[in-house]
């Protein structure tokens, strides 16, 4: 098909638009916002790719997905081949195609970006991955690897741990994942909401791992149920991918009022514990006027969740301007379409409450942008005397997370950074022999694909370590 297209014709194809649920309607339900491309749309978008020899897009992807190759197969309508290429490089393409910050990674490098918008690599990845999930019978069944006789314990079932497990299983090692919660997926399960990443996808990915022979044990809190030392004794190697799951508190007066949540609690109640469903017993306060503090993906997820739980006014309160917001652009656009209010250059000073201990408002400080700080973003500075009050009945704190010390507190010899993150070398090895780490516990809050890249990287190092020992 593509072969018949001239360069001019290729250049004339416009970037595809992702079909979406109507903004008004979706702001009241938890169904997925992006509906996915049709096969025709996907093939047409794939035809836009110029198959650059230098492959700049691949350099932008932390796991180096062979982007032009899978897109070429797709452009030719060879979906099994496209899926085969994609799955070889990326264990969780249906997840990445949905939540990767493509605009800053692969797509930003695309040569078509400047003129007519980059090839929609993320959308195409999602399309191929979804097709693969629905057509498992059309995928080549890889040969079962020779069992190596070696065993590896993986702590945490977030993207780092899942990727690690998949890679190691393919190498023939016997893998057991230990997960603290009663369900798998880490942030993919308890953090990112259904309307952005349906949990069915996480379930399918986890089932795929189990079919590869990976054992998953939930309800094991390493550091409490078992120690790192015990794991090191029972397994030939250990990978730690326990995330950065400790909420940073605001440290403001009124923070303990009823109706004040950390984003972790708010999103966990909704996503993991099903508080959005009437058939689940988990309660949550359905605010009429909800303020979410922060400007990252977590803040966007929380505020859009609040809207779907019925908030008339759902507000983002962020201390810098929109340009500095760390959230993905798509999420910011979607949030605005759903009627989310953005109050920028404002920081909370105090949370106000009534005599019964419920939140009633937020007292805020207006800010302006000063000199750039260490992160290169312009530092917000308070404007003297400029304060205002907002009437709210739920406040969600989404200012960030830190490393949870539960595991590391019981592993005194494991080398940590000053912030409590695990220190590793470039292969993911910690200072303890046979103990590797990756994902948010090493990087601090980062991204799904970086966590997966760490898992993939460290899997190679673990394989080398195990073979050396043999």
């Amino acid at each position, binding site marked *: 098909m593509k072969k018949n297209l001239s360069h001019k014709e290729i250049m004339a194809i416009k970037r595809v638009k992702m079909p979406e649920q109507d903004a008004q309607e979706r702001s009241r339900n938890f169904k997925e916002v992006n509906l996915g491309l049709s096969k025709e749309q996907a093939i047409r978008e794939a035809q836009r790719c110029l198959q650059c020899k230098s492959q700049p897009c691949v350099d932008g992807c932390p796991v180096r997905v062979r982007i032009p190759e899978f897109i070429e197969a797709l452009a030719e309508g060879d979906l099994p081949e496209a899926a085969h290429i994609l799955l070889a490089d990326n264990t969780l393409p249906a997840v990445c195609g949905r939540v990767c910050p493509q605009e800053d990674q692969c797509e930003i490098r695309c040569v078509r970006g400047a003129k007519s918008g980059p090839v929609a690599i993320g959308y195409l990845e999602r399309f191929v991955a979804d097709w693969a999930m629905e057509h498992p019978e059309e995928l080549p069944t890889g040969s079962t690897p020779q069992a190596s006789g070696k065993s590896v314990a993986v702590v945490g079932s977030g993207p780092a741990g899942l990727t690690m497990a998949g890679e190691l299983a393919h190498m023939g090692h016997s893998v057991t994942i230990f997960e*603290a*919660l*009663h369900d798998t997926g880490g942030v993919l399960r308890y953090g990112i909401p259904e309307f952005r990443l349906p949990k069915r996808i996480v379930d399918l990915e986890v089932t795929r791992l189990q079919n590869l022979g990976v054992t998953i044990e*939930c*309800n*094991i*809190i390493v550091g*409490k*149920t*078992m120690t790192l030392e015990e794991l090191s004794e029972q397994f030939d190697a250990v990978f730690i991918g326990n995330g950065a*799951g*400790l*909420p940073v*508190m605001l440290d403001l007066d009124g*923070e*303990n009022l*009823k*109706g004040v*949540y*950390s984003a*972790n*609690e708010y999103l*966990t*109640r909704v996503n993991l*514990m*099903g508080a959005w469903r009437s*058939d*689940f*017993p*988990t*309660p949550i*306060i359905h605010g009429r006027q909800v303020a979410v503090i922060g400007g990252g993906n977590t803040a966007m997820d929380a505020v859009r969740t609040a809207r779907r739980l019925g908030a008339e006014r759902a507000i983002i309160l962020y201390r810098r301007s929109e340009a500095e917001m760390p959230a993905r652009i798509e999420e910011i656009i979607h949030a605005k379409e759903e009627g989310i209010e953005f109050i920028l250059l404002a920081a909370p000073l105090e949370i106000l409450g009534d005599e*019964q*201990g419920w939140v009633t408002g937020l007292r805020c400080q207006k800010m302006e942008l000063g000199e750039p700080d260490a992160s290169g973003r312009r530092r917000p500075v308070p404007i003297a005397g400029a304060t205002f009050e907002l009437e709210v009945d739920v406040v969600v704190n989404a200012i960030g997370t830190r490393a*949870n*010390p*539960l595991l590391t507190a019981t592993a005194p010899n494991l080398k940590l950074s000053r912030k409590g993150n695990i220190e590793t070398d470039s292969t993911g090895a910690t200072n303890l022999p046979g103990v590797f780490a990756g994902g948010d516990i090493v990087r601090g809050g980062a991204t799904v694909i970086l966590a997966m890249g760490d898992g993939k990287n460290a899997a190679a190092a673990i394989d080398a370590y195990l073979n050396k020992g043999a």
Partner: protein
Amino acid sequence: MFEVLQNDTLAPNVHRLVIRAPRIAKARKSGQFVIVHPEQGGERIPLTIADADPQAGTITLFVQAVGPSTLQIVGTPAGGSLQDIAGPLGKETEIERWGRVACVGGGVGTAVLYPLARALADADNEVTTIIGGRAKPFIILADELAEFSREVLITTEDGSLGRQGFVTNALQELIDDPERCPQAIFAVGPVPMMRAVCELSRPYGIKTIVSLNPIMIDGTGMCGGCRVKIGNETKFACVDGPEFDGHQVDFALLVDRLTMYREQEAKLIGELPPELQKKIIKVKK
């Protein structure tokens, strides 16, 4: 899945469950708790590990039915199973040699107190136990506690067993008697009881340790929902506690935060069939 091996009724709606959980039994230390997630789609409920047998691979929980989830847990018969149990969570009790110790338990708190009191007695403390309840049927574990206590004082609100009144009446007498005045107090029970014990002991400067029960989800420090105020600091009860210096606890805040979902809880209880509703114990806040 975690198999329930034994389920006995100790008092109206207070059950003792023995559950197979070998890893938890092995790792558990006194004062720690588990989170029970009774079924897919259920709530996560924190419950103290009252006892553990590492050889048999079992843990013992004492559970009082106060709402739909605890009702479901106590309703799991021997041979049945609970979907998920995670633990042991929280810090272990710091057992010191205080000398004379008063252990004060109210309601199901007496069960939580039991292993604590035994550990204190094992550490050569002279333990006096005070247990209280609404009426005779609610007094549990008196005989078991008597095995290692110097004396067991019982109070009931209606006088149907022991002395009529509250545990604080008995504690006051103990404090007033120079021969029996405790050097430390451990109090576990409904929040108003723990609060009253702390108010009583404060002027005497007697160290008083309480076990707090805020609403929890993960129990691992991840959500911050269990926050309590100790002195001027906010702490997460699941990782920094659940035991704290009672004289530092902001009880008003704890009571208040426990009412956060009162409406939703009442609604869920209201949706239960009437015969089950009757089974739920009204807890005082």
